[in-house]
């Protein structure tokens, strides 16, 4: 059953690889040097789809879905997608571990790269990198839920296993409908950003690829200097706006347009998200200006707001080498790395809603420590949050920190200094992208030993699926019949 579903997913993933092949073909019309990339994608398509077909037809299909199966499907779908998504990189001559790293970083919308000379790669490959992020942003499973009737039967559990955040948003009673709507919203906002970037003077190729990676909170860029390559306040402004949109709940965007125009203001998580963005931007602007990193407060603001959104929404673009900023500013960014975006967005991290609920819980505990018999439910908007949701939030955060520390520890054992190790761990676990020092925005992950890269690949996978979905596989009882 699980293998059958995985086969179907692989089959379609292979077909999606034909899109970069087309892109490559278009560019090879003007530049014959681009042509080999077309073949690379055709080979990748053949391999992926035939493996998919094989899995689909050698395994029986049944309708019996349980919690366990859905965890298995989601976890392995992402792993397989990353493995097969790595084929084009592998065929372009990358080392296997590097290729897998790049591919996992793509699908999980991390944006960490091991490419040392980005612009030397073919247009098709760079397109694929960004396209992977766009697919991964809204969720691979979510995409198939929307288009494949077969999967929709087991929808609820699959949806829960992949969806970011502790609470689920039911837009429509039927999950298929919800998934469709979310994808539609995603496509429409992407289209708007694409047009905006075009109008701001970016080329078609750059606009499209950057739209993909902004909306997915991914952070890959076909340019070596990321967004700094354009050095245009207008483009930065557009991207800042769309990063902010992509870091908020997509269900909320839908409601904003179709249901209630004030739904944004009523949403506790969105308000807190905005508050953190505004507050940290102000703090960062001030410290950058005071420490003399930038002479003018305006410039300081320009770089601060971009970096705050880029890190908080776990996108990972850079317009300035924030690694050279003073320690206090780096500390602010480091804390933002843990928070991440809103639940139901394309962003990674611990998520704003978890932090918010935790603060509310802490506030209530203060009362409870004085009046133990006090009954006072925690509310989020007009809903009461059940106590067992709090359990899951705390377990999640504890595990998140444990994984973070374990990974930092292993990287440290491999001889990487403490700050680089810690930031490399959190930026992969939170699906952010660039970190500090060794893995700063102007350098890349290629200097990390292979063993370390494997750990970081695991981080990205675990982080994107919010830990439980992957770690459940490690429980021995999980595999028993």
């Amino acid at each position: 059953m699980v293998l059958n579903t995985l086969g179907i997913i692989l089959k379609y993933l292979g077909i999606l690889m034909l899109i970069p092949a087309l892109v490559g073909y278009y560019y090879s019309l003007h530049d014959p040097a681009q042509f080999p990339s077309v073949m690379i994608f055709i080979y990748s398509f053949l391999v992926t789809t035939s493996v998919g077909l094989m899995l689909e037809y050698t395994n029986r299909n049944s309708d019996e879905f349980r919690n366990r199966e859905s965890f298995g499907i989601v976890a392995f779908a992402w792993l397989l997608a990353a493995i097969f998504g790595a084929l084009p990189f592998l065929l372009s001559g990358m080392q296997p571990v590097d290729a897998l790293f790049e591919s996992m970083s793509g699908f999980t919308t991390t944006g960490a790269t091991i490419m040392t000379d980005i612009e030397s790669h073919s247009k098709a490959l760079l397109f694929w990198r960004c396209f992977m992020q766009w697919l991964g942003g809204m969720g691979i499973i979510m995409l198939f839920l929307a288009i494949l009737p077969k999967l929709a039967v087991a929808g609820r559990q699959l949806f829960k296993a992949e969806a970011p955040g502790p609470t689920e948003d039911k837009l429509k009673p039927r999950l298929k409908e919800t998934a469709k709507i979310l994808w539609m919203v995603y496509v429409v906002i992407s289209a708007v950003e694409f047009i905006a970037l075009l109008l701001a003077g970016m080329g078609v190729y750059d606009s499209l690829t950057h739209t993909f990676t902004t909306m997915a909170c991914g952070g890959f860029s076909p340019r070596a200097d990321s967004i700094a390559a354009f050095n245009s306040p207008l483009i930065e402004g557009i991207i800042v706006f769309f990063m902010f949109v992509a870091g908020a709940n997509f269900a909320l965007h839908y409601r904003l347009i179709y249901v209630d125009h004030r739904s944004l203001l009523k949403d506790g998580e969105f308000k807190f998200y905005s508050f953190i963005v505004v507050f940290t931007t102000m703090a960062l602007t001030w410290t950058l200006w005071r420490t003399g990193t930038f002479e003018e407060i305006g410039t300081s603001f320009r770089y601060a707001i971009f970096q705050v959104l880029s890190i908080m929404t776990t996108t990972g673009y850079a317009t300035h080498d924030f690694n050279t900023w003073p320690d206090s500013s780096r500390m602010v960014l480091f804390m933002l790395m843990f928070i991440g975006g809103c639940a139901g967005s394309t962003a990674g991290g611990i998520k704003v809603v978890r932090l918010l609920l935790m603060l509310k819980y802490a506030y209530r505990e203060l009362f409870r420590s004085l009046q133990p018999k006090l009954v006072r439910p925690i509310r989020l908007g007009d809903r009461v949050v059940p106590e067992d949701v709090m359990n899951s939030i705390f377990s999640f955060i504890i595990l998140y920190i444990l994984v973070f520390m374990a990974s930092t520890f292993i990287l440290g054992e491999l001889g990487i200094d403490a700050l680089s190790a810690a930031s490399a761990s959190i930026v992969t676990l939170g699906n952010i992208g660039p970190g500090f020092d060794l893995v700063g925005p102007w350098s890349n992950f290629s200097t990390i030993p292979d063993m370390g890269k494997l750990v970081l690949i695991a981080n990205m996978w675990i982080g994107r699926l919010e830990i439980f979905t992957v770690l459940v596989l490690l429980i021995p009882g999980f595999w028993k019949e």
Partner: protein
Amino acid sequence: MSWNDFKIILRNVGSLLLIVSLLALVSIAVPLVFREYGAIYAMLVTSVLAGIAGLVLKFIGKIDGEIQLTHAMAISSIAWLVIPLFGSIPFILIEGMSPLNSVFESTSGWTGTGLTMITAPSQLTHTIQFWRSLTQWIGGVGVVVLIISIITRPGTSMYHLYRAEGREEKIFPRIMTTVRMIWWIYFLLTILSILILLVAGMPLWDSINHGMTTISTGGFSVKDSSIASYDNSLIELALIPIMVMGAIPFLVHYKVLKGNVGAFFKDVQSRSLLILLSLGGGLLVAENFLSYGWWSEAFRYSMFQAVSGLTCTGLQTATVHTWAPNAKLIIILLMLIGGAAGSTAGGIKIVRAAAMFTGIGWWYKKLSLPHEVVVVQKFGDKVLSDDEMGAQLNEAAIISFLWVLFLFMGIFVMLHIASPSYYVDDVIFEVVSAQSNVGLSTGITSPDMMWVGKLMLIFNMWVGRLEIIPIIVTFKLLLRRFG
């Protein structure tokens, strides 16, 4: 908060100051024995000042009223600020230290931390050496707890005070009897520690001081480079069980003294303590093996530092500053977890770490099994219902969350202050050490540190000693009054 509430708080803080006055008075015995006559007047001044302040507060707050839990929390938060202030007077008068350094030293003493502003403790007068040890010895069990054992009051007042200082367990149904028993056990353990150290070959005066600061998991030393000064592995070996005793709950000590030795292994906390020690210590030995080159050397220094970190004692035999980042990380984690709740040790406390650990496993099982399956969760020797286990997990997690929040505050400030030769991991180490009341140092804490850094660490020690909640409650109270 009404004026009456305020009076209740003042009155009790006053009584606590009287205890300080009494302690200073008792300490005069030391200068008498060692013929340090100059120091007598200093201790007298301390005693008189604390006494007058205490009486004045008691007079202002003359009112009858039951102590509520809110009051108790405010009392202990304020007392733990005011007492170190008075405790700093001898440092100023006898050693001529600056007021800020003295307050730092005194706070580090009362909270049982052990970070120090004194570069050469061996040069100090005996009076000050003893005063440092005495503050740690009393602070280990708690000033508020001390007052409970002396003054009797009816009702639940006493239990509120008891809880406000981070204690919860009861040996006997009555809190007074419990506290008196705790002091007896503590006294006995202290004598035992001093004897052990004497046998291991430490001079008498050193044994008394180290005995007091080790069993209280404080960590002040009368030697210039802590225990490393002796360079004697027998002494180090002797100190390890003393530190461990200090980090074990009094309840367990009581049962063991009663003859029930098995209680030690039945208790979740003492069991976890052993596991953590062998795990953390083992990792640390492996980590340090490369730099020391000898298994025996690596074992000797790593084990001692692991025990000293986990029990929040802070005695030092190695220069941690030069250790590999991962070795520091291991000790940081041990310090964060700390000793057992209901002992003299600091940190987040083992019981909370254990609750989080079992809590995650429980949550996991619940998540991966079908809904119909009932998960039976054992915590220690108790079987907990779903609600109870969930509550345990949440409570432990929220304290840890707040704990880390306050740590971040300290780290943020200290990053600006530490000299460039110290890296981020050193700064984190130092702040964790302060907040968990450990006292291990990478060398950042020194008299030359900027005043902001000293204030920050004082704040971290204060917050850590009271386990955060009382302090937030007090802030809230004050804001409501004046805001």
